[in-house]
């Protein structure tokens, strides 16, 4: 099935406005655009270094310092207990994997379906995938009781005679996340090559050396482009099932367990949608920040993109609401004594406000705001909505993990979970994510400039009689 490139919007309605509000119809000369991107990458103000310094200190203290202390003292400094053996570390893992989803979704899915609005921000989204996965991975290691032995989970022949247990969902998880990390890094790297090559040609000193290595000698010959397109196509299609499977597999950590509230067959798609919910919101947030802070970004990232992302967020929110309702319904209808108790605990327990908050933040707020084009095109409103959705989705994971673990089939053991050092480490992972992202924006072109140029070349305005129509040609 051939998917044809779609025009940006319905031409008849939109043509009253200036077509140059659309990036694809607002072309600039290649050289100028390249310079804009280089400029935004290379201009590093003192504010950047201050922010990086502060984040670096937070990362050192909250992440590595606190983690080291926890490794030395044991997990007692964290909040987990019997029966809530899993706590915020795994909440963060699921959360960050969710964040990482949007990158691939935006970039690969929209690429596969040739949604043109994706062009300027695929890289920003893919970077989120990679760095989000780094945080997810770190959180898993934080969670482990004897992290210094974590290499025992690697399937390689060894003198200990150990072999990992492929029956364990954690092994599936381990493999899925590793696969996803590798694939998404590759997928980040491939479209980067022409841009790095562009940067190589425009820089000197260590950067030149770095870009020379990264660009793998890309010169832009027809053969190279063909190979690149080929590889990207393969990856874009191949990574989509990986992306869907990763979060499905993460959900199986819970769904295959014998716990009330966990063993739910809908968990796979429910988790995937949840991941997209938080992930797309996070992409929007990141774009808004980049646009506000980095030079020349207002040209590349425009209200049309927020409008499109806002629509996506609204749709995903609706889908999430459906899956939530489905999950709740089935569990409630099942009538299992312990599940009933658990659902009651969710709603009316000590952290009942969190359950309610989750519904408000994930459903009510997006539905009330994002239906309106004016609201969703406003970057800062969208930023706040995105932030709230992310808080709501974090709540959702918190409800699924430590709160659900509080209630089990042996009521004698029910006990609440109160976070301990996890709070510091959570702050640490967020700081680490931002720090990595900041550094990356100054090392690689954050806008895939060749993709934008390609898009602009493909788009043109044509007149048919009195009608002006946007036409898109297939380049690939």
């Amino acid at each position, binding site marked *: 099935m051939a998917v044809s490139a779609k025009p940006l919007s319905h031409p008849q309605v939109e043509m009253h406005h200036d077509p140059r509000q659309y990036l694809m119809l607002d072309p600039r000369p290649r050289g100028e655009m390249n310079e804009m991107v280089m400029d935004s990458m290379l201009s590093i103000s003192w504010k950047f270094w201050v922010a990086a310094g502060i984040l670096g200190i937070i990362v050192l203290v909250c992440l590595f310092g606190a983690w080291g202390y926890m490794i030395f003292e044991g997990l*007692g400094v964290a909040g987990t207990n*019997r029966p809530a053996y899993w706590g915020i570390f795994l909440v963060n893992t699921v959360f960050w994997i969710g964040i990482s989803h949007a990158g691939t979704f935006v970039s690969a899915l929209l690429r596969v379906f040739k949604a043109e609005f994706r062009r300027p921000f695929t890289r920003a989204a893919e970077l989120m995938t990679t760095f989000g996965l780094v945080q997810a991975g770190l959180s898993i290691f934080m969670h482990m009781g004897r992290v210094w032995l974590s290499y025992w989970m690697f399937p390689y022949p060894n003198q200990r005679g150990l072999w990992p247990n492929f029956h364990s969902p954690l092994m599936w998880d381990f493999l899925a996340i590793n696969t996803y990390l590798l694939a998404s890094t590759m997928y980040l790297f491939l479209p980067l090559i022409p841009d790095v090559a562009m940067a190589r040609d425009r820089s000197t000193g260590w950067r030149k050396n770095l870009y020379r290595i990264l660009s793998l000698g890309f010169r832009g010959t027809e053969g190279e482009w063909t190979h690149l397109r080929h590889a990207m196509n393969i990856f874009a299609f191949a990574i989509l099932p990986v992306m869907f499977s990763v979060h499905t597999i993460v959900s199986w950590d819970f769904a*295959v*367990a014998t716990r009330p509230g966990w063993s739910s067959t809908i968990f796979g798609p429910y988790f995937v949608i949840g991941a997209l919910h938080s992930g797309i919101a996070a992409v929007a947030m990141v774009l808004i920040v980049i646009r506000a802070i980095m030079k020349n970004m207002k040209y590349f990232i425009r209200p049309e993109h927020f409008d499109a992302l806002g629509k996506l967020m609204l749709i995903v929110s609706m889908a999430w609401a459906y899956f939530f309702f489905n999950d709740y319904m089935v569990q409630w209808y099942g009538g299992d004594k312990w599940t009933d108790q658990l659902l009651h605990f969710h709603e009316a327990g000590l952290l009942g406000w969190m359950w309610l908050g989750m519904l408000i933040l994930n459903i009510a707020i997006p539905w009330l705001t994002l239906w309106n084009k004016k609201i969703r095109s406003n970057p800062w409103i969208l930023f706040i909505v995105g932030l709230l959705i992310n808080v709501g989705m974090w709540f959702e994971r918190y409800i699924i993990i430590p709160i659900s673990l509080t209630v089990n*089939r042996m009521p004698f053991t029910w006990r609440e979970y109160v976070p301990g050092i996890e709070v510091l480490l959570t702050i640490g992972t967020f700081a680490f994510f931002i720090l990595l992202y900041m550094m990356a924006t100054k090392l690689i072109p954050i806008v895939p400039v060749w993709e934008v140029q390609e898009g602009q070349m493909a788009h043109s305005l044509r007149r048919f009689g009195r009608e002006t129509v946007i036409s898109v040609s297939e380049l690939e």
Partner: protein
Amino acid sequence: MSKHKIPEYNTSWSEEEQGRWGMVIDQDLCTGCQACVVACAMENNISFVGEEDVVYGRAMHWIRVERFWEGEYPEVKATDFQPVMCQQCGSAPCEPVCPVFASVHSQSEELNLQVYNRCVGTRYCANNCPYQVRVFNWRDWERPEPLNNQLNPTVTVRQRGVMEKCTFCVQRIHEAEDSAQSEGRELVDGEVQPACVQACPADAIVFGRIDDPESEVSKLTKGGRGVQLLEDLGTQPRVTYLKGG
């Protein structure tokens, strides 16, 4: 390890047939005195954790005595005391979820064992245990000198970050099996007694082989008063509780 004892795995076995060691707890006899709890701690080098960590749900008891309430004063009644330890499931939910095979089914005793030095502390097994009998070493619990003199050399001392649980005192099973073998005889019913069974002043806990129809534990299991905890989950627990009197 007594390799000669290990039967070849036979795929035609059903889970029920493999059960060898089992326990019966007569709740009508249990007085809730906690002697089993202390005996277990003394035998198995279980750490004490102190008030703050008990408040927080980190007590290391391998066996706990549960009691609930029924009715309102003055018709209030404490339910029968119910000691809960690892049920040594025939189909244990904790086993398949461990990524490093630290929670394993030992084929020589048909017990569910935790290999402490293989555990990396993912705690999945504990989440998946419907009986909530696994306990985790949240810290290297303090055991000041000279309390360490009391440590049982036949039981592993566990490090922080390691999951642990009741083993039916597997060290005692081994010792009894090996001494019976060296004397060239079969094990006698009642010869192996885990620490809780040995201490129980009310004789409420009986231990033995459930694959031997003549053993006391087999007879009690089939005596009509027996129920198993969360039977509907299909975990095939090896511990049977006797209700009523």
